[in-house]
């Protein structure tokens, strides 16, 4: 088996804020195998975006030097803010409306990225962009090169950004909720496009979302984050069918497609400046008991390539699922 494209180990990211030091990510591990599709899921504020920013080397100014390691193609890119991985990691941002500079032509913005990170001449780059525009089904690729961002619709802009992410033939594509800013029909089209590209081009994909439906349609594996720590991970199908961590179970119960009654999870994600001691989920946990660990529970490996950070996971205490 070839080594994974991306291997994050023990990642800790802290941010200096006015309310004190916020622990955004704590001991996060995630692995994207070559050709694999991995989803990161969790509520707003669980650290999904920060994880992506750490991988892309664009953590905000207030961030302390992160600890842990981010191995990309076997090299630690945490120290050089991913500079050595530029062009090798394609990025599909969340908001296609705000992510392109309004005063430059779409084509020029992509060519600028390629000029620095892709081999070949400008003519080669142009040809490649036109190919990509066709691959992402942008109408009239030649004209699209010369258009300004505001002349595209939201869905077209996201296609454009997907093409831009693929421009330098990246080893890994990282997508940050690429469909949340779009309407539902466009969302479907973009997801179908992404799925198609993943299969055709054998892309390695790291996909952040808060939507299990979206997740299931794109990702083979999933990591569930809660309050900056990994709650559970494993193959998407298995995690969705038999969630082990109480948080995953409650999160799934909130999903409109699955919920019998939409109760939601009581309480809110704790503030990053005041993380609870022990298990971070304990203030909201329905199965909390006296035997809960005093330290944050480590990930425990389960059969089937899964892991969970709760000693009372479903397989261990089956009645907890129903109780």
């Amino acid at each position, binding site marked *: 088996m070839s080594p994974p494209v991306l291997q994050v180990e023990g990642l800790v990211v802290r941010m200096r804020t006015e309310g004190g030091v916020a622990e955004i990510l704590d001991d996060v591990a995630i692995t994207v195998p070559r050709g694999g599709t991995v989803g990161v899921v969790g509520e707003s504020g669980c650290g999904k975006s920060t994880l992506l920013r750490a991988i892309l080397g664009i953590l905000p100014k207030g961030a302390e030097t992160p600890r842990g390691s981010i191995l990309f193609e076997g090299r630690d890119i945490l120290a050089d803010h991913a500079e050595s991985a530029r062009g090798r990691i394609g990025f599909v941002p969340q908001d296609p409306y705000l992510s392109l500079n*309004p005063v*430059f032509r779409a084509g020029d*913005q992509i060519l600028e990225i390629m000029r620095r990170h892709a081999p070949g001449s400008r003519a080669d780059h142009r040809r490649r962009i036109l190919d990509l525009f066709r691959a992402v089904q942008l109408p009239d690729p030649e004209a699209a090169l010369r258009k300004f961002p505001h002349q595209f619709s939201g869905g077209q802009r996201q296609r454009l950004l997907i093409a831009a992410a693929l421009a330098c033939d990246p080893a890994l594509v990282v997508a940050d909720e690429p469909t949340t800013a779009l309407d539902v029909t466009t969302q479907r089209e973009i997801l179908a496009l992404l799925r198609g590209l993943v299969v055709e081009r054998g892309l390695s994909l790291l996909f952040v979302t808060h939507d299990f439906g979206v997740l299931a349609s794109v990702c083979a594996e999933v990591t569930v984050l809660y309050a900056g720590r990994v709650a559970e991970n494993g193959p998407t199908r298995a995690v969705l069918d038999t969630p082990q961590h109480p948080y995953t179970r409650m999160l799934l119960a909130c999903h409109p497609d699955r919920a019998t009654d939409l109760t939601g999870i009581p309480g809110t994600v704790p503030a990053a400046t005041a993380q609870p001691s022990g298990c971070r989920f304990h203030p909201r946990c329905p199965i909390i008991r006296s035997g809960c660990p005093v330290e944050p529970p480590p990930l425990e490996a389960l059969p089937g390539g899964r892991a969970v950070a709760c000693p009372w996971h479903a397989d261990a205490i089956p009645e907890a699922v129903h109780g």
Partner: protein
Amino acid sequence: MALYVLRRLLLALPALFGLVILTFVLSRVVPGDPAATLAGDAATPAQLAEIRAQYGLDRPIMEQAVIHVRQVLTGDFGRSIFSGRPVTEEIAQRLPATLELTFAALLLAVLLGVPLGLVAALNHNGPVDHLVRLLSVGGLAIASFWLAIMLQLVFSMDLDVLPLRGRVDVAIGLPPRVTGFLLVDSLVAGRLDMFGDALRHLALPAITLSLPGLATIARFTRSGVLETLQKDFVLYARAAGYGRVRLAAIYVLRNAVTLVVTQVGLLFGALISGAVAVEAIFDWPGLGTYAVQAILSSDYKALLAVTLVVGVVYAVVNVLVDVAQALIDPRVAEDAG
């Protein structure tokens, strides 16, 4: 785009027409009878009436307004009461001097202000940033007449490296007049010595005049860049792997300068009015000194003409600013239709 430029030009016309009417009204409501000024203190009523008839001041006010508009449209501003020469001729002779000075000041302000603002924003709250902020407060706070005198004291009197006043050295002389801009005419004539002389004379007044503009432009560039740096597309560009220098100097700056360009249009008005004081101190033979002279001698014809010409220049500059805006940001032309 062509349509946009045409629209901007057409929109400037009503403003200019308003200016023509306004100057006329002002020249009639200000206290003092122009005829009395012309005739002098010892004039008899008969002489006054004669002068009134000669200048058309005895006709109904509406008729006078129509005549005024017609004269202005044909570029005829009458004769100066002070010198007796046609006002149009006098202005044509002096306008290039003022424009050369203001354009030089504007160029300095932009060429120094934009990089200063950019560097300050990139070193937000660093020492360079504080220095630029100090400079931009100082640039607006320092009175230009004081700065002018200080510059004269240091560079003309003490160091004796730059001329004290005027536009040319008599010993070197003027190039043949083509545009009236000495820097251009001297090059057309192929006289580098004259070019150098014109530049040396231009230096101190241009620096004096540019300082408030430089301060404003540095400040707006700084805040524009700081604002743009917060945008999602900058974060995206960083993640996608834009080069640092290119990101700041081209990608971010182009968004930031839209603010600055608007300021340039507004600044131009301030520069022309600022030129009045600066020209007086440096004895610069431009419209400013001409206007001061016209005010002192109640030469309302000359004053009216200066006001109009400055108004036209201001309008033209602002049309150019609008066009520059549209070239920088394609959405501007489309939003305006």
